């Protein structure tokens, strides 16, 4: 991780239920550290405990055992909250509010000085690609994508140092997805720490520095993207037919596992940067080199199916 720790989770257990309801263990000893300025992804199957963990990180839920610190303080400390932006998965606001009233409420709650509220609203409106006309409409007339955008807008108020996003691209069209991606890059560029919970693995892969695979209330695996994940990536290599055998030998020598199928070579297990030099060195012409599926997707299914994978 390297950077200064922004979020520290130590041995967090959380159980739901009680006297009347059946007890359900949601978190079973989560340990995590998220660095300052890091974009950290939470991935895992439904019911893995990701949203519960997010609730604990935000101070909405109290762990039964264990501690959580955000910038060395409790997550419900007002100093932390002043610097927190949160986009919930379930967009349940008071739908009778207009877009402007909603953002005004949250701008004031976020501590934006009264005189700067209109300016702050206009800023996040533009950054969320919401039409000015939409600000006058009640939230109940908004489409799912617009609700997601206005929720994103409120999360971006005051440029929070800690950004928690729960399924931020849910219900969004491709431009919306690109918008979220841009904001994540912006947040990272200004040094914000981002925790992203998403099922869109390709998006997670594009923006996250590290991901935690959560399953059964535990962190099964921490993955630094472009590190181990890259090594697990499978690639498709196309070379001229007569040179295929030479290419196989060169790639095997470079440390790749190679298999041949329909005149194409499938390689995995090495650094992709080594493919070009290995083939050129062997006098092979490289026609095409492309990834097979998303690397995180492969890791996700490997973890889900219980492979250790290193």
């Amino acid at each position: 991780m390297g950077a200064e720790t922004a979020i520290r989770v130590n041995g967090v257990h959380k159980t739901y239920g009680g006297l009347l309801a059946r007890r359900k263990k949601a978190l079973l000893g989560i340990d995590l550290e998220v660095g300052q300025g890091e974009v950290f992804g939470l991935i895992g199957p439904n019911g893995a405990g990701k949203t519960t963990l997010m609730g604990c990180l935000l101070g909405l839920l109290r762990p039964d055992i264990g501690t959580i610190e955000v910038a060395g303080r409790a997550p419900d400390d007002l100093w932390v909250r002043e610097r927190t932006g949160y986009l919930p998965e379930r967009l349940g606001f008071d739908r009778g509010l207009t877009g402007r009233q909603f953002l005004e409420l949250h701008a004031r709650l976020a501590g934006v000085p009264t005189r700067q509220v209109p300016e702050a609203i206009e800023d996040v409106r533009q950054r969320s690609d919401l039409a000015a006309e939409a600000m006058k409409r009640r939230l109940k007339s908004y489409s799912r994508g617009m609700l997601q955008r206005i929720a994103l807008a409120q999360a971006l108020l005051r440029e929070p140092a800690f950004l928690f996003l729960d399924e931020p691209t849910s219900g969004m069209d491709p431009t919306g997805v690109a918008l979220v991606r841009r904001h994540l890059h912006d947040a990272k560029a200004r040094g914000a720490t981002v925790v992203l919970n998403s099922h869109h693995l390709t998006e997670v892969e594009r923006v996250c520095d590290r991901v935690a695979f959560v399953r059964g209330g535990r962190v099964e695996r921490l993955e630094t993207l472009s590190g181990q994940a890259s090594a697990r990536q499978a690639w498709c290599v196309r070379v001229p037919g007569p040179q295929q055998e030479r290419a196989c030998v060169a790639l095997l020598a470079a440390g790749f596992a190679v298999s041949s199928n329909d005149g194409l070579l499938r390689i995995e297990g090495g650094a992709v940067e080594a493919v070009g030099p290995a083939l050129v060195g062997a006098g092979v012409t490289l026609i095409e080199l492309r990834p097979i599926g998303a690397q995180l997707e492969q890791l996700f299914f490997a973890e889900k199916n219980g492979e250790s994978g290193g």
Partner: protein
Amino acid sequence: MAEIFRSTILARALRPLPLAFALGWATFGGFTGAMLRSHPALDPVTAMYVLVAFMGLIGLDVENGGLHLILTRRITRNQYLAGRLLAAFCLCFVFCLFRFAVTCGITAWAGPGRFPPTSELLAVLIAWLGASAWQLGVLFFCSTFLPGRLDSFVYWLLLVANALVAGLGEMLDKPWLTALTDWIGDQLLNPLEIWAFDATTGWGLVRFASNLTVVVLAGVLIFHRRQFSYAAG
């Protein structure tokens, strides 16, 4: 807290439907006040206003998930509760004053001779204010643990069920049942009995205020113990 106060006023009074209901109902209540000239333990006009205008005072935020967003902002749970409750109390106060003004206007219009003594008018106003404060307190208490609009529904249900059982007690001539329902009714309505203006007045005030304080504090304690996440189901 000011923001929560403001948003409560906006949502519960300044939108067309709540505003029309409050004004219409207060005017109607003004007529009934002029006709009744009394301060019954359960003033149906005030009760109806409180239970309709403020149903789901906290529960709706919990149910629709808005509370999750609010509580991740720079606001404590106490500030949130205080904002909601104070705004509701203020609106009840305005409702009662408006209704009182209508009552006085109608009584004066009916003829100066029919205007009751000031002390009686004041007693009516205080009874309305007390009843609305108490009902709001109970609604607030229920709202801290019941989802959505169930707070209002449960309070109505208790009042109606108690009245039915009381009627049954009288029908079957069971004095113990009548006494029991009287006692329960007293707990549910917490009537402000200060009209004798003698030694019992102080005791009546203390009883009313302490009951209200206990109910509100119990709501606050319950709310503090609650954890909020839609993952919790």
